[in-house]
């Protein structure tokens, strides 16, 4: 049973119908092969760009779709049900546009935003470093101002789309002050001194590129500084609040896909002369999976609606990310159980879903870090 959605407008209905069609015909059929062979689906992102799906939650005047998060996230969820690598990439792209769209000057937005939102460009978000993962304030990559240029040196780690992105939202140190010494930049994707390392060999999400990004005397104009010097960490964390909603939606889409596979299998697989779904022991497992999917969806939608109304949502975004990604881990693991031996083979997608679920508990703040954010909101 695919997800039934209550959408606020006709245009949202039509949007979801379009996304489902693209997901069914252009994404899902290629997912297993590309993941198996570690092929990054750059073309799929171009198709999303041509279809106007790369800038959904941003203003129409800059080429965005002007959709509330409630709608954008459900579109993202549909993509995730078909192909996680593309959904995560879409979420990262949207997050990479956030700094400029929210903290950039009008002049900067006019200049760069339209091609990021309505074109076929792909973005990256460069915050983490080897020694600065959960603690980004410990970063050491430096941007030094020389006349009307910044010169950047250092190495970012774990960067999604490293080497494939057309631009990066880059956080780098402009002063030694730990938290307040970090600034945000819109760095070009291809420029002298910027190189990506060999991609990490990951457990899942193998179609997506994750790699270190090295800056050797990379120079760009001071007009690429977003906000003021020292605003970087604030912008980065604010971007993550929205990004975490994206990851929550990705998690729900993945869990929904796993549930659908499990239910379909349980209806047709017979043992002891009956379809296995008729055994209560298994039916209860499926019921718990369905409950986890629905409640996780409700949780991220509630957080999204707060965001759409301009209410604070940091704590709710962390709760949604925590709940939804833990639900995805459990549901995908149980889906493997429902399929038995078949589920453990690569002939069925659920073992891949299980591997893909794991990373959702790690990136954009581990689930321990989400608890830290939630706890701070309680103080």
């Amino acid at each position, binding site marked *: 049973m695919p997800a039934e959605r209550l959408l606020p407008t*006709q*245009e949202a209905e*039509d*949007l979801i119908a*379009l996304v489902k*069609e*693209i997901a069914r015909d252009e994404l899902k059929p290629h997912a297993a092969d590309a993941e198996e062979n570690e092929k990054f689906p750059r073309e799929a992102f171009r*198709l999303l760009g*041509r*279809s*106007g*799906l790369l800038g*959904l939650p941003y203003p*129409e005047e800059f080429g965005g*779709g002007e959709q509330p998060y409630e709608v954008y996230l459900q579109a993202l969820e549909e993509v995730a049900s078909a192909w996680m690598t593309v959904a995560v990439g879409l979420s990262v792209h949207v997050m990479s546009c956030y700094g400029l769209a929210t903290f950039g000057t009008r002049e900067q937005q006019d200049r760069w935003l339209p091609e990021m939102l*309505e074109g076929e460009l792909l973005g990256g978000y460069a915050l983490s470093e080897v020694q600065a993962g959960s603690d980004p304030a410990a970063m050491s990559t430096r941007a030094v101002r020389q006349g009307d240029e910044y010169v950047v040196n250092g190495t970012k780690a774990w960067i999604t789309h490293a080497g494939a992105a057309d631009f990066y939202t880059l956080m780098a140190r402009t002063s030694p002050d730990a938290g307040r010494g970090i600034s945000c930049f819109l760095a070009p994707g291809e420029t002298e001194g910027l190189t990506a390392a060999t991609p990490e060999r990951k457990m899942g999400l193998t179609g997506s590129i994750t790699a270190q990004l090295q800056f050797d005397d990379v120079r760009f104009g001071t007009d690429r500084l977003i906000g003021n010097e020292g605003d970087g960490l604030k912008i980065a964390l604010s971007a993550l609040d929205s990004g975490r909603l994206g990851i929550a939606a990705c998690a729900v889409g993945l869990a929904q896909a796993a549930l659908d596979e499990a239910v379909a299998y349980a209806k047709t697989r017979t043992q002891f002369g009956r379809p296995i779904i008729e055994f209560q022991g298994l039916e209860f497992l499926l019921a718990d999976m369905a409950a986890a999917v629905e409640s996780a969806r409700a949780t991220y939608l509630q957080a999204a609606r707060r965001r759409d109304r301009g209410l604070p949502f940091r704590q709710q975004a962390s709760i949604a990310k925590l709940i939804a990604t833990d639900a995805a881990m459990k549901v995908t693991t149980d889906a493997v159980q429902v399929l038995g031996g078949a589920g453990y083979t690569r002939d069925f997608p659920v073992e891949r879903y299980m591997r893909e679920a794991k990373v959702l508990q790690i990136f954009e703040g581990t689930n321990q870090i989400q608890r830290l954010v939630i706890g701070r909101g309680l103080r």
Partner: protein
Amino acid sequence: MNIVVLVKQVPDTWSERKLTDADHTLDRESADAVLDEINERAVEEALQLQEAHGGEVTVIAMGPDRATDAIRKALSMGADKAIHVSDEALHGSDVLATAKVLAKAIGTVENVDLVIAGNEATDGRAGAVPAILAELLGLPQVTQLRKVTVEGTTIKGERETDEGVAFLEASLPAVVSVTEKINEPRYPSFKGIMAAKKKPVSTVTVADLGIDASEVGLSGAYTQVLEAAPKPPRSAGQRVEDGGDGGSKIAEFLVGQKLI
């Protein structure tokens, strides 16, 4: 060049399709309804011709209220405007009535140079509407095309059948029907979806088109479906034991199925 595209909303071929028990017409409630895929290709062809030759693309659909979804899809792909023929009286119309209504609706569009239809709807599968329509309009019909080109006031087409390929030509205005080989339809973009909301759709009844309600619908149909039974479930495959002649047995089977 002004083009009319005939689009039909049909049950999604991805969902289960069945007939109603009451009057053996299609149960349109039980399945998701979508713009027929062949008509997406018809719209695509119209848009490509418009890109090359200018003019306006009008879509016409005859169908119940929710056919507006199919119309919006065609508009979001890029068509300019639409006419929706919607009337309770149309329920159960046969191919003749359908063609008659569509002919009248086409008559309300000014300076039509070309009418594009699908060769066959995925639900009714009559494959007859375009030809009947051409007769009613007194226009040349160039049907079952896998390729269409327009040069001046001449339309050229390639018709592919089991027997081979025929190269056809007619003068405009004309009626053409296209097969699934004609093109790959574009996806609408979200911008197209937003733009479609503002495009004009006029909804008309059979009376608006000057047709008497008794000429259409179940009562006006020349034929009637008396009984309908679901297709028997697929039977088990045929097993070929290879006693040295397996190859030729398989070949015989394929010849029997007209596959080779």
